[in-house]
């Protein structure tokens, strides 16, 4: 009896997920081993792991600095000069292992040697790095800020509902719309942010092209993303806070606990489940970073805002390479799965 009731009740939901997520995803896994295109009269061909090899093709090359005839290291602007990488990366016959690769990063080894890490798909690797950076910054910051706000508005004073609503307002606006609005704010010449900073510092502030510089583009997008999303997590924290019985706070007050002690020993333990929920949701949302990039920067400047999902869409649809896009999505799935398993293991009940 229990079996039948259980299946009957969970069945419809599971069936929908299986039909509209799981089956298509298995189709995507299949595509990732082919050369499937969105638009093509050619029959689809099995290509094995070629798509994966392209994503992760890496080679390491250590070069000696060029020397003058007398043996001294040739320098330019105080830096040693190395032979052109092109003679390796464009030379299929002599150096097949470096062929069609480009520099990802390099580091010096002593005076006259430098190691270059070459990769077939530098853009993708940068996208992975940026996405990780985005998650690592946004998830904790947004969760903490949301908790701070939740505690701020978890009090009974007149008009608090108005503030709750106002703080939540950005959440109801689509990320696409938010990104369009914030382009005005981040504008390099006469954006609102530059104007406000200029006013606050009495003209001392130099205008910054927030989205146009490699150093500020991704952080700007992070700040905006937190602004947009923090209200939602604030509400989740708030509902967690409201389940902590007032009697516990009363007891803490009688014991003479400080504010920090109250938070540490009453509030935080009461929020355990909420914390896990918030972290999972934020991490997932952060990993699928996409509309902000598509609307604001298109991955630039110089790939500093490339993200995994943006690359997935760019390839699958923009460049109509369904197999390439599918390969990235399989990677993303496995990658996030392993991270969430790790997260689960770290937050397990000891």
């Amino acid at each position, binding site marked *: 009896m229990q079996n039948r*009731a*259980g299946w*009957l*009740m*969970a069945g*419809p*939901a*599971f069936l*929908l*997920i299986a*039909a*509209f997520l799981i*089956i*298509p*995803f298995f*189709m*995507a896994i299949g*595509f990732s081993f082919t050369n499937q295109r*969105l638009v093509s009269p050619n029959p689809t061909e099995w290509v094995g792991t070629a798509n994966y090899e392209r994503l992760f093709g890496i080679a390491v090359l250590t070069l000696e600095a060029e020397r003058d005839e007398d043996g001294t290291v040739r320098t330019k602007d105080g830096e040693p000069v190395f032979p052109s990488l092109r003679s390796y990366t464009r030379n299929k016959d002599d150096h097949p292992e470096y062929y069609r690769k480009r520099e990802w990063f390099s580091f010096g080894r002593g005076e006259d040697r430098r190691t270059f890490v070459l990769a077939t798909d530098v853009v993708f690797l940068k996208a992975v790095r940026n996405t990780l950076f985005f998650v690592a910054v946004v998830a904790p910051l947004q969760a903490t800020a949301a908790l701070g*706000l939740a505690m*701020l508005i978890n009090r009974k*004073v007149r008009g608090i*509902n108005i*503030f709750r*609503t106002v*703080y*939540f*307002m950005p*959440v*109801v606006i*689509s*990320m*696409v*719309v938010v990104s*369009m*609005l914030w382009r*005005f704010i981040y*504008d390099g010449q*006469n954006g*609102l942010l530059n*104007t406000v900073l200029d006013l606050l510092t009495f003209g001392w502030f130099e205008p910054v092209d927030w989205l146009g510089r490699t150093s500020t583009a991704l952080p700007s997008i992070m700040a905006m993303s937190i*602004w947009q999303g923090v*209200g*939602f997590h604030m509400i989740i924290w708030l*509902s967690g806070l409201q*389940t*902590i019985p007032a009697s516990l706070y009363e007891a803490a007050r009688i014991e003479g606990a400080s504010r920090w002690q109250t938070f540490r020993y009453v509030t935080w333990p009461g929020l355990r*489940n909420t914390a896990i*929920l918030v972290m999972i949701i934020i991490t997932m949302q952060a990993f*699928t970073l996409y509309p902000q990039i598509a609307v604001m920067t298109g991955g630039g400047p110089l790939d500093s805002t490339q993200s995994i*999902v943006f690359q*997935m*869409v760019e390839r*699958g*649809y923009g460049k109509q390479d369904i197999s390439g896009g599918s390969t990235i*999505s399989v990677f*993303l*799935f496995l990658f996030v*799965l392993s991270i*969430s398993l790790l997260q689960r293991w770290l937050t397990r009940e000891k």
Partner: protein
Amino acid sequence: MTLERKTRLIGLYLFLGFIACIFVLPILFMVMSSFKPDLQLLSDSSSLRAFLPVGDLGVDNYRDAFSRAPVGLFIFNSVFITATTLVLSLFLASIAAFSFVFIEWRGKTVVLAIIIATYILPFETVAVPLLLLVNNLPWLTAEGVTWGWLNSYQVQIVPWIIRALEIFLFVQYFRDLPRDLVESARVEGASWFQVYRRVVMPLSGPVIATVAILKFLEMYNNQFIWPIMVVQEEGLRPIMVGLLYFFQLNTAWGEIMAYLTIITVPVLAFYLVLQRAFIASIASTGVKG
């Protein structure tokens, strides 16, 4: 009220107000801009005038937006698609979660784990395979079975009904409910469905509100790539596709701001309505903890 308390209260309000400004100013910019002509909008956008109702104000942008695109139709489509999905989602997700938490059945751990794992799949991952799939699915109409879901409401609704997060949220919430309530109802002879409907759901106001808001936002704000792929008739397009009507050469920013303001109203209203229910339900149940 003592002076000290008064000062602290004022300080609190100042702080709350400062934070409120951070959240509300960009939205204020959107709303104010929607009443300004393009040239003024752009020149204002570099100063604090951007937030103020100053200059040559009017509703021309709204009038022009409505004549450029069938705005009402797009909003109707989005609201209809969202509402239908939302109702189905709340029912199917909650009843599935109920089964996962309160009923013992073979295979449920595995099924739940699989469902939760799908949370990782962004929709973009499966869009193309899904297009091929829905193009070959049957649908029942008054005139019999038809094949292929393109150009319909159902193609924008059915694939979106359930996401892992909704089930997950319900599961998390149900796990904290006192189990003896369920067990005593069973002992009294209630069927599983009666327990779900009469015991568990009445206690689930907060999580229903949370899921409803989340689902509403997902459906109302983010339906973009999929409708472009599966809907060719103008009459079935949702609001985010409608936004593209406004990106012509020499972008009409005023009209865009007007359009954005209009489409934000339903979702804000939905939140405000739900917020009352949501907070009231927390106060009245007092079940948790």
